[in-house]
């Protein structure tokens, strides 16, 4: 740990230096901007910070911003679980923070209701705009206008416990690439076949929408999508049914247990060693660091799967962003904060601490990525985002409930998905 402390210090110093440089590059010369922001306050909402993340944000990143610009920043941390509700009530009551963090599904719901300030003009003048991955930048647009800048991506892929896989004779160079391979490994690991685990596969059931996320990945891998060209739900088409049949088959064969739910605290099943295969992101590795550091070296990210041998691998990325409130009294100050937070070094450190992958191309060689299992980074090229629907929050909850029911084998996949399509169309007014 002392070594880690020393690294942190160097990084902090480097981060502060780079932040200063970024500030200068943005034209925020400390002396000049101090006069502009001195004595003023901006508010900032962030979701899901750990204590360490919050300390870094307040004491290092924002302290430097205050030094450069004179703006004091009031940080309002919150958890992801109730994030949308908090944003919604803040928007309705006109108390939304000047700059706010946004999750993937919150973004279209609030953008479509005019909660944020369009930033196209500012982006056009900002040199850094072209440094963001275009797909991630596009995810912050709605109806042709840009409202948000990406801060990091939560890219999902297949994740394994290499030590447990080894026991079943699966080496790191023979990781599954398609559904059949993946299922074969799960079978090998199962106690039913003399393997070490009762339920080798964990499909991310949690108190949020983890199961829906796993299904969505399988849906994309099967070549499916949520909506057809007219915007009608099409989960019950062949691709959707195939994806759900595949997911449910793990439960039917006893390779997964629908009652194993990660409660949001403590070690995840993969870290705990009660399962050895899942679909997740860098957060699994972080979870190991936090709860079982000795296990971190066994967390191995594999390639995203394809449905068929030789098929196209596919996965999903959840892109988190920052946006400016439409009712901010200080748009220039809010933009200064937004561009500072998404500047190269701050954005890189943010992604590292929050457990994501960089949203900027110039961070592809970031030092922290050397500590991340390479599979996570490689998966980025296969990642797509969920559709930008204003009702996505409501839809994903319905999908998650349907998946909870399906994994308990409540009925045929086709029927479950047909009912789901009907509900989704109802939500979308189709």
């Amino acid at each position, binding site marked *: 740990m002392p070594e880690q402390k020393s690294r942190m210090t160097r990084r902090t110093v480097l981060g502060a230096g780079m932040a200063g440089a970024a500030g200068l590059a943005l034209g925020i010369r400390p002396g000049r901007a101090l006069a502009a922001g001195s004595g003023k306050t901006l508010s900032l909402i962030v979701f899901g910070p750990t204590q360490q993340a919050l300390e870094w944000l307040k004491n290092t990143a924002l302290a430097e911003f205050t030094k450069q610009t004179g703006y004091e920043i009031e940080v309002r941390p919150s958890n992801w679980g109730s994030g949308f509700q908090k944003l919604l009530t803040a928007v309705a009551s006109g108390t939304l923070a000047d700059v706010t963090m946004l999750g993937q599904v919150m973004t279209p719901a609030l953008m479509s*209701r005019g909660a944020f300030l369009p930033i196209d003009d500012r982006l056009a003048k900002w040199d850094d705009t072209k440094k963001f991955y275009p797909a991630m930048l596009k995810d912050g647009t709605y109806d042709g206008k840009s409202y948000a800048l990406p801060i990091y991506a939560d890219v999902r892929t297949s994740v394994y416990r290499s030590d447990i896989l080894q026991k079943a004779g699966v080496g790191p160079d023979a990781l599954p690439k398609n559904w059949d391979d993946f299922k074969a490994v799960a079978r090998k690991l199962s106690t039913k076949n003399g393997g070490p685990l009762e339920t080798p596969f964990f499909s991310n059931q949690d108190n949020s929408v983890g199961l829906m996320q796993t299904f969505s990945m399988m849906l994309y891998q099967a070549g499916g999508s949520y909506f057809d060209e007219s915007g009608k739900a099409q989960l019950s088409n062949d691709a959707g049914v195939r994806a759900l049949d595949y997911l449910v088959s793990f439960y039917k064969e006893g390779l997964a247990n629908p009652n194993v739910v990660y409660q949001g605290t403590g*070690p995840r099943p993969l870290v705990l060693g009660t399962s050895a295969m899942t679909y997740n992101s860098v957060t699994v590795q972080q979870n190991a660091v936090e709860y079982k550091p000795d296990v971190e070296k066994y967390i191995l990210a594999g390639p995203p799967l394809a449905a068929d041998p030789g098929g196209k691998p596919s996965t999903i990325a959840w892109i988190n962003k920052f946006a400016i409130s439409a009712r901010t009294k200080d748009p220039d100050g809010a933009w200064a904060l937004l561009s500072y937070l998404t500047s190269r070094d701050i954005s890189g450190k943010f992604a590292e601490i929050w457990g994501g992958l960089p949203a900027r191309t110039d961070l592809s060689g970031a030092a922290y990525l050397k500590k991340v299992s390479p599979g996570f980074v490689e998966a980025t090229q296969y990642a797509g985002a969920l559709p930008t629907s204003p009702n996505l*929050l409501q839809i994903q909850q319905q999908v998650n*409930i349907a998946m909870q029911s399906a994994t308990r084998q409540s009925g045929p996949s086709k029927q479950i998905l047909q009912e789901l399509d009907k509900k989704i169309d109802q939500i979308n007014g189709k």
Partner: protein
Amino acid sequence: MGSDAAASAGSSFNTPRASHPDLPGGIDILRTQRLAGAALISPAVLAIIIVSILPLLLAFGFSLTDFNLLSSPRWVGLRNYAIIVNDPVFWESIRNTLGFAVSQVGIGIVVVLMVAALFNGYLFGGPLMRTIIYLPQAASYVVVALIWTMLLDPAVGPINRAITATSANPIYFLSDPDWAMPSIVVVSLWRNLGYFMIIVLAALKSVPAELLEAAKIDGAGPVRRFFSVSLPTIKGVVSFVAITWFLGALQMFTQSYVMTTGGPVNATRTIVYLMYDDAFTNLEIGKACAMAIMLFLLVVVMSFLLRLVLRPREDR
């Protein structure tokens, strides 16, 4: 309230009109008294109007609109009510809510009576034990729910560790649809026990000693004395506890929100949870208000029925 008390309370209204003899023209004393009374109660009435009646009327108004908090409400008449009654999840949530309330209060009243009786001196008691039983009430539901979520965790919770230590399979208390609601009932019971026990204990302590003494002389044992003397004497208090507990249970939300987020497969989704989802996830404030009005009606009906069932026999 007995008939004498009612007559006494109503007597001032029967006082003949009188004028003050020392003042020219006279002053209507009764009118003055009424005005003074009205002035004295007006702050309380105003508070009730502002915090209870006005929001209720507003909620009813919004229930007839399509409203998403971010744009102006649009009149839709009774459409929200029609959508709700045709939604199977609503009926599932009604079933969950009533199931929770009936089981919690049904089991709770028995446990409260037993514990209060024990503390009243039949077996053991003492301020320390009473304090320990009351302590969970001092913690907020969120804290209680978080603690129990950790205790019941199938992988790292101590309860399941004890279960698996005996070579049994872990119990998925919060993620198995068959176990989730019973677990929440037990947690809620644990949290509320102390509060209602104190009320019942106070009632038990007010049972006239001479009645208990007479029963003892007649040869009644502790159990018989409890059922034949104490319980009938405190029946009114027990009814009060049952009604307030039941009506409170109909509004259960926090435990379900923190411990299971309404799952698994809607097994712990209650009416208030559904309201919350409609209002703050689905942005359907009108529908949430319609559901709030329906919950209000349910509470009124249940309150009336419970009073009817639990009122003392002599009042029927």
